[in-house]
């Protein structure tokens, strides 16, 4: 009977713990609703106004979805390919610039000399398992670029959507 009582008590505690977690998460959702909505919907275009001078609004690159990446093709946004030079040569997003992870010290310096810090940048690499775009984007923000975002689907998502690719394709 005592065992049964303890079991019931544990079950009740678990239910209460779950309820507390849900309530706390709801508060977090309400407090951070704007940021989370921007991030989860991929609508981060106006997160940092292009005309604003000064430091970046955030120290972390926000994500951008394929649909928006498509819309931004041909705009002032510069696409940065964080993959190796070999992968870049085999195929990349139209008008993308190669800046491989591992060459970022010299690469970011060269970029700063040519590209104004107010230019919106989208960094990509080899898709969801690739962390290079995230690390490079952090470096670009640290270098002073104010609008840096990550296209997490990267080259594979772009290619698999049947969108135009530059460079030698098999």
């Amino acid at each position, binding site marked *: 009977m005592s065992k049964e009582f303890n079991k019931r008590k544990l079950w009740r*505690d678990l239910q*209460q713990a779950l309820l*507390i977690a849900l309530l706390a998460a709801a508060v*977090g959702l309400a407090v951070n609703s704007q*940021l*989370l909505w921007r*991030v989860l919907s991929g609508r981060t275009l106006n997160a940092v106004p292009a005309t604003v001078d000064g430091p970046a609004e955030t*120290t972390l690159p926000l994500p951008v979805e394929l649909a928006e990446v498509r819309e931004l093709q041909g705009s002032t946004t510069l696409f940065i390919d964080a993959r190796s030079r070999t992968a870049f040569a085999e195929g990349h997003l139209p008008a993308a610039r190669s800046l491989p992870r591992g060459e970022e010290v010299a690469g970011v310096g060269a970029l700063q000399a040519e590209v104004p810090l107010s230019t919106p940048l989208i960094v990509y690499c080899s898709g969801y398992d690739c962390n290079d775009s995230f690390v490079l984007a952090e470096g670009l923000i640290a270098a002073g670029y104010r609008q840096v975002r990550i296209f*997490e689907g990267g080259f594979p998502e772009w290619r698999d959507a049947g969108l135009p690719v530059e460079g030698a394709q098999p």
Partner: protein
Amino acid sequence: MTSLRSMLYHGSRLLLGALFCYAGLVKALDVVAFAGSVANYQLLPYQLNFLVAGLLPYVELAAGLLLLAGLQVRPAVLLVAGMNGVFIVALFSVILRGLDIDCGCFRPGGEGHTSAQLALLRDAGIMLLALVTWFCADRRNG
């Protein structure tokens, strides 16, 4: 409840509560930096890192406040132990994958660097505190 057990109970409860209040507060104050710390673990899709960063600090804060106030202690301890268990699994995966990242446990995006090994040791201590609080609370109520 003997005085020693009572001291153990209140000591571990207050320490655990203060730890989680502090951890939750510093993360809640800089969600974007904490999202970066979560992203460093390379466990979730990039966007989900922001969701975790937006919600987790408030769960930590709630559990910490309840422990400090001495309310719903057993459910709060279960929450703390559950979160700590997840942190331990994540830290083990960091060690197994050979990642050299800051654990992001208390100072997301900060200058300091707490290795996964050190963070695991600290989490083991937190788990011990949770166990002590749980059993003392059990005797106290039972």
